[in-house]
Each structure stands twice: as C-alpha cells, then as structure tokens.
C-alpha cells in the first residue's frame, strides 16, 4: 500500500470513530441549513457563526438556549465543541441530564455524555452512565459500541473487550459490533479472531477494507497464513479480498496482494479492484503485477486507457509482443494526433525492443507531422536504442545525429559513448541526464569512480549488458579489471554484482575471494567479505558466514559496513529476535 493509501486508511479509521449518531446529527444539520430557518433555531445559527469566528464565549449561551429548540441535537454538539475550547466541559453535564431525562432514547445525548465524562477523567461516573444507558435501552448495541470505543481510545483494551463480551451476553449477538470486536481483538494480538470479525464487518461496510488492513498489519509472521485463510475462505467476497490484498502489500508482498485478487469473479466491482491494484503496482514499478491486473480488468471491459496502461506495463517487463498486441495503432480510430501522442511511443518502443528498429523508424516517419519536437527527440532515442540492441552502432549514431545538438547531449548519446569505451564523455552525459534506472546507477557507480577516461573492455561489457548478455558483461568486466590501473577491485566487484543478480554464487564467490586476496585495502574488500558471508548463510553455512563477518569486523574496523556486519552476526548467533 502506498503512503497515500495508508493515510487514507488512517483517516478512514479516525473518521469511523465519529459516532454514527453524530454523523446522523451532522446530516440533519446540513439538511436544516438548506431549509429556511425557523424562528426558534435562529439562536443556533447565530451560535454557529460565532463559533466559526472563534468567539466561543459568545457562542456558548446561544447554543445553550437552542437546546430547547428543534435543533437541540446539533446545539448540543456545538455546545460540546465550544465548551471543550473554553475548558468548560464539566458545564455540559447538567444540561445533558435534562436532555436525557426528556429524550432517553436519543443516542447522541448519551454518546456526548460518555465522551464528556471520559474527557473529565470521571471514570466511575462514565461507567455509571454507560450502565444507565444499557439499562434504559436493553436491546440497543449503541451503549456497548460507544463505551467500548472510548475504552479502546484510552488503550484499555481488556476493559473494552469485557464490555463487548457483556454485549454478547445481553444482546445475544455482537453482529452490530463487529468493527469494535475486530479492533479489540487486533489490539490484544488475537489476529485470527480479529480477521474473522473484520470479514464480518466488511460484509456490511465495504469502505472499511483499508482500516482492516491497517489494523491487521502488525500480525506476526507465524500467524499470517491463518489470517490469509480467513479472507480467502469461500464464498469469494470482493471487500474481503481487497482488504487482504492491501494487507499482503503492507506485509511486503505485492505478489501475494495480487493472488488475493486474481480469482475474483469478472464484474465491474472486481474490475475496479484490479484497476486500483494496478495503479499501486505502477506507482511502485511492479510491472509484472500491473500487467496481470490490467489484463484481468481488460477481460471484463476493454477501454483504450486501460489497454495503453497494460501495454506500457508489458513493455516494462520486457514483453514487447504483448505491448504491440494490447495497444495497436488502430485503437486510435484514425485520430492521428491521438495516435502520435499515445500509441506511437508504445509501438516504437516495442518494435525497438523486438529488434525491429527499421520498422520503428518507418512508423515514426509516418506520423512525423503530428509530433511535438520533444516527442520526436524521445522517439529518435528509442530508435537509437533499437539499433544498439541489434548491434548496429553506426545506425544508432546516425539516428541520434538526426536530433542534432540535442541528440549529441542526450542520455542515449552518453550510453553510446560508454559502449564505445569513451568513459570521459559518458561520465559527463550520463551524470547530467534525466533518465533513472538500475542500469544507469550501475554504470555511473562504476565510471564515476574510475580514473581512466577510456576503456574498450568496459564499453563492451555494458554493450553486452544492454543486449541482455549478463554473463558476457561479467566476463568483460573481469578482463577489464586486469587492464585498468586502480580500478581492479571495483570492476571485479561490479562483475560479482552481476553474477549475483544471475544467482551464480559460485562465480561471484570466486570474484569476492580475488578482491579480498589481491586488493585488501580497497573499499570493495569489506563489501566482498560481507557479500561472501551472506552467500554462505544463504547456502546454510552459518559457521562460514560467522567467520567472514568476524573477519570483516576485525580487519576493516573503519569500514562503514561494520555496523551492518555486527547486526548480521547477532542475527546468526540468535542474539537478536528474528521477526
């Protein structure tokens, strides 16, 4: 769940804490505000104006006088607010007694009474007021709900739970109190019971799905599967699955978040859930999940906007063929401006990725007169990329040359310089570029620290990487290491990094060993030792991992990696709890 969603969840949780009766009263107030004011409610509206301008002392007597009018409920809420501002909340108790005596079934009066007593810290009176309310309305869940909420707000979870248990005893059910039960169970660490209550609550209030995910987020790892089972149990209910999806994302697995949603029945509600999930996945650059979710949504209803999003996601996971299929130029329905703006970039990028830069060039040329200058430059770079991927550097350069000065100073020009082994130019252009990608971080991390200005082997290594040949790239970097004075350990470490990404721990380990043996005084040596220890730990060799972590700490005491090594050493020795 992204930050915005969490904020929404929090706000939702807070919002839901406003008593339902209060919301009802506010709605009444709004309705009243739209109708012509009766003479006996004039004082109330005057009081609202005074309150809005911060004149609480002046507003208080007017709200008080309005307690005897048809606007009594809203006047009481106003009086509660201004008294709280003035620190006079205790003055509310007497009018409340009168109001409750006159209208004992009005929930707002009772709720305000409980709130006031709680804010005054009069716990015994609070309890007594709750008991009176429960006695006067023996079939209502409201007294239990409001009192339990107040107790939970004060973190008196056990007490709140006792109130809910009593509600079950008195009312025979807690069906209307599932939200409170869910919150109390979560606060007590009864995660599975809480999940059950949330699922029940979501049946009647689907807007609580983010609140459910927020409340269940702290579930310990060992209990998470049981919580999953609660939400996945048949029948399939969209709010429950959406809550689980949010929960899985908060637990760090967006993939499991998608698992919760993918088997929803295809209908408009599910399609909305898929589309929203995709939106979050797109924001987090989890393109595979975004593509799957968008393709599911497309199966229910195909819209051009969804199709374009799906095509972009497919491109970003390297599925260029799917991208071409999802957003064909024909979808623009003859609107060339729309085609040039929305569909052409997707198609050109897909063609370049498929090794068909000539086709991309032709397509771009066909829409040239509909392109804005910035868009044209971008497409030219895309085409240049396509030529790079086919290994035709002359064509790539020619494509960039069409962009003139802009092309020469672009990111793509920086990459071309790097592939040529011209590290000096690449350093300047890539550093000042607008692109950001893991490949750029790798390239800049390397060439910014190397003292040499040219190296054909390094250029070949990055060219191999661009063509998807990571093994070749690693081999080229190892070759370059021996020919690059002062950069050997860095090049070997980068090669090891690539091998690690290929999950080839054997080759990576050989490189780490070489760094430690041949360049023990470089910053890459402790880094290599740490990675080696991690690799051994992954392979189950705890003793070996311990030896390397200890060696790192003792040999490189000044390294910035020492605190991390200590932390991992503690974890290996079970000195710190595993979470």
């Amino acid at each position, binding site marked *: 769940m992204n930050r915005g969603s969490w904020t929404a969840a929090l706000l939702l949780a807070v919002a839901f804490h406003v008593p339902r009766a209060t919301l009802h009263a506010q709605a009444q107030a709004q309705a009243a505000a739209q109708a012509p004011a009766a003479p006996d409610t004039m004082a109330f509206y005057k009081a609202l104006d005074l309150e809005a301008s911060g004149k609480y002392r002046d507003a208080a007597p007017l709200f008080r006088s309005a307690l005897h009018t048809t606007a009594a409920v809203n006047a009481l809420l106003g009086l509660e607010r201004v008294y709280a501002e003035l620190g006079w909340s205790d003055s509310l108790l007497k009018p409340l007694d009168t109001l409750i005596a006159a209208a004992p079934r009005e929930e707002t009066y009772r709720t305000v009474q409980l709130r006031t007593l709680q804010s005054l810290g009069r*716990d*015994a009176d*609070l*309890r007594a007021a709750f008991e009176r309310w429960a006695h006067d309305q023996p079939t209502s869940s409201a007294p239990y709900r409001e009192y339990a909420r107040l*107790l939970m707000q*004060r*973190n*008196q*979870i*056990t*007490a709140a*739970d*006792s109130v809910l248990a009593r509600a079950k005893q008195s009312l025979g059910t807690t069906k209307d109190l599932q939200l409170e039960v869910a919150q109390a169970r979560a*606060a*007590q*660490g*009864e*995660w*599975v*019971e809480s999940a059950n209550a949330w699922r029940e609550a979501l049946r009647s209030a689907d807007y609580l799905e983010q609140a459910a995910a927020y409340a269940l987020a*702290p579930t*310990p790892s060992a209990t998470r599967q049981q919580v999953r089972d609660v939400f996945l149990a048949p029948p399939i209910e969209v709010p429950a699955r959406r809550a689980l999806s949010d929960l899985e994302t908060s637990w760090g697995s967006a993939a499991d978040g998608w698992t919760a949603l993918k088997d929803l029945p295809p209908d408009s509600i599910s399609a909305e859930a898929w589309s929203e999930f995709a939106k979050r996945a797109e924001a987090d650059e989890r393109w595979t999940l975004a593509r799957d979710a968008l393709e599911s949504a497309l199966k229910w209803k195909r819209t051009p906007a969804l199709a374009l999003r799906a095509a972009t996601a497919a491109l970003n996971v390297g599925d260029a063929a799917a991208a071409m299929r999802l957003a064909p130029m024909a979808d623009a329905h003859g609107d060339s401006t729309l085609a040039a703006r929305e569909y052409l970039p997707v198609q050109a990028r897909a063609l370049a990725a498929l090794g068909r830069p000539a086709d991309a060039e032709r397509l771009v040329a066909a829409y040239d007169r509909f392109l804005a200058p910035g868009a044209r430059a971008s497409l030219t770079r895309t085409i240049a990329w396509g030529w790079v991927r086919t290994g035709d550097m002359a064509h790539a350069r020619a494509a960039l040359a069409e962009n003139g000065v802009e092309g020469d100073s672009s990111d793509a020009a920086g990459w071309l310089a790097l592939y040529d082994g011209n590290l000096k130019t690449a350093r300047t252009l890539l550093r000042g570029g607008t692109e950001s990608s893991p490949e750029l971080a790798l390239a800049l991390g390397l060439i910014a620290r190397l003292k040499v200005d040219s190296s054909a082997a390094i250029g070949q290594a990055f060219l191999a990487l661009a063509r998807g040949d990571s093994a070749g790239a690693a081999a080229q970097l190892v070759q370059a290491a021996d020919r690059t004075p002062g950069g050997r350990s860095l090049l070997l470490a980068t090669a090891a990094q690539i091998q690690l990404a290929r999950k080839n721990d054997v080759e990576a380990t050989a490189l780490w060993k070489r760094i430690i043996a041949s360049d023990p005084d470089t910053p890459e040596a402790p880094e290599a030792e740490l990675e080696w220890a991690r690799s051994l730990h992954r392979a189950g060799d705890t003793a070996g991992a311990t030896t390397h972590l*200890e060696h790192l*700490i*003792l040999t490189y*005491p000044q390294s910035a990696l*020492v*605190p991390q090594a*200590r*932390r991992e*050493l*503690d974890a290996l*020795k*079970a*000195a*710190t*709890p595993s*979470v």
Partner: protein
Amino acid sequence: MSMYKLNKFKRALGAAARRALCVAAGLLAVGAPAALAQKLLVPMDDAQQNHLKAYGLTYNAIKAGASAEWLLNYRGGSFLLSDTPDLRRQAALAGITVEPIDNAKVADIRTEIAANNMEAVPLEKAPKIAVYTPPDALPWDDAVTLALKYAGIEYTPIYDDEVERGDLSKYDWLHLHHEDFTGQLNKFYLTYRDVPWFIDLLQKNTATAKRLGFANIPALKKDVAEKIREFVERGGFLFAMCGATETLELAIAARNVDIAQSFIDGTPMDPDADKKLDWSRTLAFRDAHLEQSPFVNSMSDIDGHQVNAAGRQQPLGTFTLFNFSAKFDPVASMLVQDHRAVINDFYGVTTSFNKAVLKPADIVLASEEGAPWVKYIHGDYGKGTWTYYGGHDPEDPRHQIGNPPTDLSLFKNSPGYRLILNNVLFPAAKKKPLKT
C-alpha cells in the same frame, strides 16, 4: 556461591580506618611495578557504544577465569578487565568500547575512587543462571532473556518440572518474569479464553499439575513459589520482573488459603482470604489486599499502576535511581549502576509497588518522585537476596500481547535494560570476610 556482604563489613569499620585503607590501596597501586599486565577499562558512561554487550564481555571474562573489577560510580559503573587478546577481539566484534590502560592510569583511577563516592569491587565467579520460563513460546517477550541473549550470557531455561525435582540448587541466580504464581494464568481467562494459545497454555499447565501430583494449577504454582522462597532462603539470588513479583508474594502468603477464582480451580476465592494471608513468610510485601472480583484484571493492591483494570490505570511517568554510598552500600550501588539517573517508566502486568505494602527492611532502589509507588526494590531474605523490578519491557512501554519482541541491537545503550544486567553481575561480586 559467592556472596557480597562488604556493606556490613564496611559499616563495622571506623571512618578513620577506612580512609587509611583507601590511601594505602592508592599508594600500593601507584608503587606497583610497571611490568604488571595492562588493563582494559570498559567505560560505562556515554563513551560506551554498547552498554548491554559490555556486561556480556565482563561476565564471560569472569567465566573464563580472567580478573575483573566493577568500578562503582566510576564513569557510569565501568569494568576493569585483564587485557588479553581474546577480550580485545570479543570487544571489537561486539562493538564494545574498551580503553587499554597502563598501570599508572590504573593507579590514578584507584586514587580517584578512594577519594570519592566510588568503589572497586572484585568480580570473582560468574553465577550460574536459570530463567524460569515455559518451554513453549508465548505471545509476549521476556526482557531478561532478551538481554541475556543479546549480551551473550549463557542461561538455562527451567520450568515446573525442574523446580519440582529440586534443580534450583544447581543455580546461583534465578529469574522470574511474567509467571502468575497464583495459578490464575494472569486472569487472561477473562479475555483470551477462546484463543488457541491460551487454551494450549491452560491444557499444558493442567497436565503438568496432574503429572506432578497436584489437584490444579494454583496448587502446583503455590508449591513452585514455596520452592523458590526456599531457594532464596538458602542463599540464592532472585530477580523478578512484571507480574512474577506480585504473584510470587501472593502465592507465598496464601500457602494455606484459596485465593484462586473458580474459573481456574472450580471453587471461588475464600471470602476471608485477605485476612488469612500470612505475610510473615513473604520476601518483600506485607498487608496487601487481594482483588476479590474475578472480573477485574488485577491481583491485588501491590501494583500501583493497575494497567489492566478499567478505571484504575495510572499514567506512566519517569523513575529516578537512588544514589547510594558505594563504600557503605556496595550491593545497592551495584544494582543502580547506570549512565542515566532518570529513566522512562514502562507498563507491565505489575508495573510498580505501592509504598504502603513494602516491608520496612526493603531497600528502595528507584521510585517516581511524588508518586505513592516505587519501581525497583531489593532486600535480603535468609541467606539470599531478592530484587524486584516492575514492568515488562524497558524499551516497549506498552508491550501488548502479540507484539514482536524488542530488538536490542536498536537499544544497545538502554538504561532500563542495564538495571536487569546489573542484577546478573552483582552475584559475581567477591565475598569479603566480615570483621567480627
């Protein structure tokens, strides 16, 4: 078993004689030959990068036979250890700040100690540690086992079977944490009766009680409490936190009275239980009153904060460690060695101890200013000693059931956790002969 009774010894000495002794010690140290081995000073003030692991370093040094001294009130209660390659290695690995010092510096330190409210206490023998904890993991953490594990101090977990077969005699130091020795399982029945972990806990405890020949859990726990009392009486060191403090005392006082509610043993609490409690047998408290209601999550009025009793809960403040005379009261001084004097309070099933129920001989080690309760107390009982520290987890002020355990690598300078580790080391202090 080593026992520190230096306080009594020192009190017996005249002030003049004491001054002469201190000066002599200082002169001897200054005149010591330079060829003597160097020392490692383990500072415990703000210069220390990892206070908690420093205790483990010292404990394991003593265990390995190295010489060690605890420099009370000197730079936050520092340790002075033999300078060995292995200790330096261990310190470097753990990130513990150590300062190699020569004999001249050692002499300077001894002179400073002699002239101020400080003392150098030799640490002789690493105590054998047992932690009374159920074999199955429960959904809450235990501050002491967390601290011991993080510091690298070895301990043996024991539970009812081991206590009942007499294993306590194998240990010098016993820690109790969340156990409810009244046998009512912390009254969690009120809230958790349908929760799997509680059902499991109830079944296992009931089975243990039957297996060991007791009618029910309260009967078993009372007997365990009695054996713990005897352990202290015979010379053991007891350290307890959280609910174990209060319920151990109640169980001992209620040796012949039914104080358990019917949900756990099938019979209600004896209506006259309060009057029948025998406080002459308890370690720390007297004249406390039992909570009579089975529906109120509280055991008695021993706890000042009553965290789980609706309407009674008191807010958390801070507690202040007392400053004792290191030369006259070295035991109390050891227990309060810290780099902070004022520490944020933290809740537990039992958070604090009402002053009204303390026995007159109790030594208050820390309290909240202006509050009717204290936080940290200590006393002698028979040939042994006990220390009670209220609250559950010093770095998690509201530890809830189900919360993840505290990762002490994030709190390696915790002043609250230091108090726990002071208790682990103080039984190592060398017994000095009483001059009678």
